[in-house]
């Protein structure tokens, strides 16, 4: 689990949002400095009430912020703490459980970067390393299926790039409501076009995934996207900002007003109401910008022009600055006026919370800034120096010359609240488990049996998925050895013959009956799928899709699923290298079936010896292995 995942979305029901791209309209913002809630003003008006509750912050959390700062936060500081301490960025409900992945992780020399970074990295030999991760974009994909799914792909691809890797393939694991429901048509069609639209335009082959239909996902589809990238072990990049004097550069799309619904409560409480136009909560992606950003980053990495890099996801500039600063020398100064804006009326709080897509933040030595900007210009990628690394231990931000943020960055990035949520076995579980298949009638006649087989073959979950897969480019990059309809994707890396295999699996119905075993079954299915190509499974990523953590029954499902997965990984000798938690997947008070989706990565010594699933040689012997 990347406990600092910056790119998820759709975890909380508030929705996520974003947009981004292009020309920066960097006009001076029409804000009168007197209106700015500066640190000085905060000191003078210690009792000014701030709308922390509306931002999802609890009383005790707000009290802790006051304690950390020794005064009330400014509205900009509150913006930072509220997003960084949200479930989605801080993993506050899941953290105590996710620790098991680290504690129980088998010793593995292959693990170069473990959990906690943007994505884990494993050594696959012959001078190559691989990084991969899966993430959810569930809620946005229900609100606006095309854009929600598209930006889900965009986000996970940026995670992979920020590790220093060239993305080489994507996969998507999808769950929808009943196929005959009218809303499923809207959601499925949009999601598939969105996954394809973004991935195809980026030039990444889609090498597999899942499509599952179940009533429980009717108003809460699951859209989990996986990306895998390849790099040299010495080329690994980290989200750190070391070296006082180094420059902080924001590059990629301009910062826009999308996805900052939360910030408007802040602004309206502190400022005049009239500027508070309704802010959209959907993200809109620009895959072309992301393609440029990809090539631009790879050229920048090739020339060794960065010391640290972070992509901007859900918590945007807040997340990138606090995490980079916290992991570096400890200090950073940012001039928020220099952030290129798509909408010049944005307030500092809104800039800090904006989830505009297709942006990255880099830390660059002063001597390399010029060349860095040249490479960006070559790719038509706007880039701006917005600040500098310091050794003050403070993250400071100014707005029209006034200091509006002055915090120890680690307190926002790493020291968020940790909950030990209560959990208990769901009340209906015993009854569900007792309702075994024994009471179902068995086919009595050959005719019955025939009908059962036909019924199964025609059922939506087993039917042909080429309606989906034919909308995805599986050939681009010319290294796809296995893709649809195979159970695992296999791609060649380097000049071959080495390759990597990937599969994702999950079964919410099993996990509903027994989350511990359900998670293990999902892992073992993905593991088998990878192994049957001839690859050796090496590492695991996971996307844990659950209901509300405030529901003790859901929390129990979550705890059991994590334990099951951690135990199984230990038994199989494969570490979890990253992943993502998506809570609050429910309709009203009814949670979805707990749905851990597990991705397994394996290494193949010689892809020429791949094993496809078709029986393509006459006279071969059929063997059934296992019990």
């Amino acid at each position, binding site marked *: 689990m990347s406990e600092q995942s910056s790119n998820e979305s759709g975890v909380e029901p508030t929705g996520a949002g974003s947009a981004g*791209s292009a020309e920066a309209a960097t006009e001076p913002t029409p804000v009168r400095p007197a209106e700015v809630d500066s640190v000085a003003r905060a000191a003078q008006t210690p009792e000014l009430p701030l709308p922390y509750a509306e931002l999802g912050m609890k009383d005790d959390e707000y009290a802790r912020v006051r304690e950390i700062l020794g005064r009330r936060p400014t509205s900009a500081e509150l913006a930072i703490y509220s997003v960084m301490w949200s479930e989605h960025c801080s993993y506050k409900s899941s953290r105590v459980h996710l620790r098991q992945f680290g504690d129980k992780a088998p010793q593995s020399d292959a693990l170069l970067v473990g959990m906690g970074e943007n994505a884990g990295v494993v050594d696959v030999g012959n001078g190559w390393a691989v990084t991969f991760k899966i993430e959810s974009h569930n809620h946005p994909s229900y609100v*606006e299926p095309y*854009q929600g799914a598209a930006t889900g792909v965009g986000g996970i691809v940026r995670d992979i790039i920020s590790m220093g890797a060239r993305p080489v393939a994507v996969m998507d694991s999808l769950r929808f409501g009943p196929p005959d429901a009218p809303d499923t048509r809207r959601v499925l069609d949009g999601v598939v076009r969105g996954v394809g639209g973004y991935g195809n335009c980026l030039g990444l082959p889609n090498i597999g995934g899942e499509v599952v239909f179940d009533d429980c996902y009717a108003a809460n589809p699951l859209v989990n996207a996986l990306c895998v990238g390849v790099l040299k072990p010495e080329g690994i990049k980290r989200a750190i900002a070391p070296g006082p004097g180094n420059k902080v550069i924001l590059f990629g*799309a301009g910062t826009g007003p*999308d996805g900052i619904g939360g910030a408007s409560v802040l602004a309206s409480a502190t400022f005049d109401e009239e500027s508070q136009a309704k802010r*959209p909560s959907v993200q809109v992606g620009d895959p072309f910008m992301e393609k440029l950003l990809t090539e631009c980053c790879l050229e920048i990495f090739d020339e060794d022009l960065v010391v640290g890099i972070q992509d901007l996801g859900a918590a945007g500039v807040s997340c990138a600055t606090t995490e980079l600063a916290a992991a570096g020398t400890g200090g950073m100064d940012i001039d928020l006026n220099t952030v290129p804006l798509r909408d010049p009326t944005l307030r500092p709080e809104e800039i800090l919370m904006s989830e505009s897509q297709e942006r990255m933040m880099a830390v660059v030595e002063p001597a390399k800034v010029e060349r860095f900007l040249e490479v960006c210009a070559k790719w038509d990628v706007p880039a701006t120096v917005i600040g500098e690394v310091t050794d003050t231990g403070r993250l400071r931000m100014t707005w029209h010359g006034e200091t509006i943020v002055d915090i120890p960055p680690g307190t926002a990035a790493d020291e968020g609240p940790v909950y030990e949520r209560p959990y208990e076995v769901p009340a209906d579980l015993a009854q569900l488990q007792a309702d075994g298949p024994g009471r179902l009638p068995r086919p009595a006649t050959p005719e019955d049996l025939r009908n059962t087989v036909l019924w199964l073959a025609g059922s939506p979950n087993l039917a042909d998925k080429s309606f989906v897969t034919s909308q995805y480019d599986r050939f681009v990059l010319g290294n796809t050895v296995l893709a649809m309809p195979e159970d695992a994707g296999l791609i060649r890396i380097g000049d071959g013959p080495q390759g990597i295999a990937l599969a994702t699996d999950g079964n919410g119905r099993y996990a509903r009956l027994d989350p511990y075993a359900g998670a293990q079954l999902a892992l073992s299915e993905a593991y088998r799928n990878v192994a049957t190509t001839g690859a050796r499974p090496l590492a695991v990523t996971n996307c844990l899709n659950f209901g509300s953590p405030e529901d003790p029954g859901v929390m129990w499902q979550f705890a059991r699923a994590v334990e099951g997965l951690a135990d199984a990984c230990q038994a199989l000798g494969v570490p979890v290298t990253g992943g993502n938690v998506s809570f609050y997947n429910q309709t009203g008070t009814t949670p979805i079936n707990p749905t851990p989706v597990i991705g397994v990565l394996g290494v193949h010594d010689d892809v020429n010896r791949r094993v496809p699933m078709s029986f393509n040689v006459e006279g071969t012997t059929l063997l059934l292995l296992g019990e």
Partner: protein
Amino acid sequence: MARFIVEVMLKPEILDSQGQAVARALPRLGFEGVTQVRQGKRFEIEVDGPADEAATERVRKMAETLLANPVIETFELRAE
């Protein structure tokens, strides 16, 4: 027969990646001085019967539910 025009544009706060790609390319193509480009859709719709209020209402309903996505787009409707 009545003819209606429905124009669908992205809401101003939504990123218009298409318009921006055109705007960015223009100077390189020798077109200077363009400060903004927005790209939207235009529908020409012909319906049976007169261009009365009822017809307008039907087309408005169509625009709302199918031609525009109210989450990210706005539309304008006029009879022609």
